């Protein structure tokens, strides 16, 4: 499985990744908006035309105020909640690692958006034929052996693309060799069962807006328990109701027959 290693401490906030993503995926420009919040960031959140977002966070690191950049995008979970939520398999985890959305299958129920722990899938709210939109790990580029466009353009090497196992090893070695530069955590290694996007950071992850209260268990495992009960419920309830009906009906018939007999 492929994935990204995003080292936020190497990010200089140039947003070349956001531009490259827009260019490759043919995403229209967004009108900058004012909002209360971190400094230079725009837009405020991911949307149908922004698949990746550099967040600007003013935080204290190493004893002084600093701009700490975060990177939000689809995490391409190993066992994605969105793919298990989708009733029609429009979202699928590909063998290459990317979580990919098939346009023609989607019914637009938005359960994927609801289920995603990272608030990633977005929706075309103003369209008569809306699509679910999110990072595809440049699946089309991967298919022809090219590197995803964001990783290709990143000038500082903050976005590495490669085999997930290699990236985990790389992240571990960075933490080991330069422990003072990082929060000692690889975000995405274990969250919701592990993700194909791994993130290193110089500031605590919750301060960068990454959800940190996520379970280590994969999210589909929560609904699987309920789904596994279905066959038992169907058979069990069918038997109980059928037998109850027979018993009660028989009692009625016996009583009726008894009455008749009594009269005769």
């Amino acid at each position: 499985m492929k994935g990204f290693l995003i080292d936020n401490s190497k990010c200089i906030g140039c947003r070349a990744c956001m531009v490259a993503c827009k260019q490759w995926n043919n995403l229209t420009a967004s009108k900058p908006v004012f909002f209360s919040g971190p400094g230079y960031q725009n837009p405020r959140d991911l949307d149908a035309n922004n698949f990746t977002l550099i967040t600007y966070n003013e935080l204290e690191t190493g004893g002084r105020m600093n701009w700490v950049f975060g990177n939000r995008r689809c995490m391409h979970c190993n066992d994605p909640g969105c793919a298990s939520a989708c009733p029609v398999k429009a979202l699928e985890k590909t063998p290459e690692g990317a979580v990919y959305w098939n346009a023609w299958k989607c019914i637009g129920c938005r359960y994927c958006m609801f289920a995603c722990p990272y608030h990633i899938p977005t929706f075309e709210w103003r369209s008569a034929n809306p699509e679910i939109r999110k990072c595809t790990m440049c699946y089309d580029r991967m298919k022809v052996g090219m590197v995803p466009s964001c990783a290709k353009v990143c000038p500082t090497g903050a976005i590495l693309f490669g085999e997930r196992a290699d990236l985990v090893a790389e992240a571990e070695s960075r933490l080991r060799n330069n422990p003072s530069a990082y929060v000692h955590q690889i975000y995405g290694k274990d969250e919701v069962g592990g993700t194909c996007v791994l993130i290193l950071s110089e500031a605590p992850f919750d301060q960068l807006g990454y959800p940190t209260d996520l379970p280590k268990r994969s999210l589909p495992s929560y609904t699987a328990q309920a789904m596994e009960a279905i066959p038992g419920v169907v058979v069990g309830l069918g038997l109980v109701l059928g037998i109850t009906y027979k018993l009660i009906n028989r009692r009625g018939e016996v009583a009726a027959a008894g009455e008749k007999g009594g009269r005769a």
Partner: protein
Amino acid sequence: MNQLKAIVIALVREFIQFLRTSSVFLRIMMLIFVAGFATILYRYLFGIGAISNLNDAYPWGLWISFDVLCGVALAAGGFTTAGAVHIFGGKKYEPLARPAILTAFLGYLLVIGALWVDLGRPWKIWHPMVLWQPHSVMFEVGWCVMLYTIVLAIEFSPAFFEKFGLEKARNAVRSFYVPGVIAGMILSTLHQSSLGSLFLIVPHKLSPIWWTPILPLMFFVSAVAVGLAMVIFESTIAAKAFKRESEIHLLKDFGRAIPWVLMVYLVMKIGDLVARQQVMLLFEMNGMAVAFWIELLVGILLPIAILTQRDAREDGRILFGAASCVILGVVLNRFNVSMIGMRSQAWQTPYFPHLLEFLVTACVIAAGIIIYAYVVKHFPIWHEAAHSGHSAE
């Protein structure tokens, strides 16, 4: 074929005649329906965002919380009553069965109608039938809606066949009516609980006041309670609106059953919070805690207190009040689980339904009221109107 054509023409004529001669109240309902329908047409041109405040942080809003979750829960009177009458030997409650089944059938049709607004691409609504994803709770929900609506159509069909004097069809349905009722009960059990299962996948988003692995069970048990309450509620209103004799002698027994179900629900709710060690959340001063307390006090404890009193149960007005409390409690619960209890990130846009979202929901309710009023007037639904020679199914 000619017979079918004649029936359709007769139905359309009768319905138009019904609309022409309807009361002021129904005319207001028609107005709401037309306004809502225009809004829905606008949405088909310009997207869901054009008539709603739904956003990427809150992909589900009023329509899912009320039209779908509450709609299905409030339709639970259908399978509880059908089960009580046809499976558990409660033959004397037969007069309540047809109205309850009609309400459930209408409820499910309206849920499907609402889905045609809420789904982004409703013309692909049939996809779950061919593109299987058995791991998805939504897949189960889709199948349950479809199959149970078919079962409800079968359960309702005797009234239809009797109206048009189709004896053969009427007798054909009788031969598989009981298996149909059993199938309906199984499907309802699955469907009511699966709406709870939908929320199992968001342990991180839903407040631990409501997120629990037994959420599906809670949805089912509360649906049984609200199903019984809906029969009381609907029968009382119908008696008043259509100047019929009240069925209090039957309804009071439903009133007696409700506290037992609610007590099971109460034990589950409290026991679950204790077991998960989340009780302290209820004593924090915030909107979620308040919402939970209202659900608990008004929706569960108050009706238990009232309906365990024999005198109170036999007073139609108090019985109606208690049933309304149960309904309010379950409606609030569905809102709590799907909207109020949802936590979002600081950077995200908060959600409150748009005025037009309320209009669409009102349109769905208005459609239900109009069709209900028409059907009870022109079909053998109530026992005094049901075919005298047959047992009303």
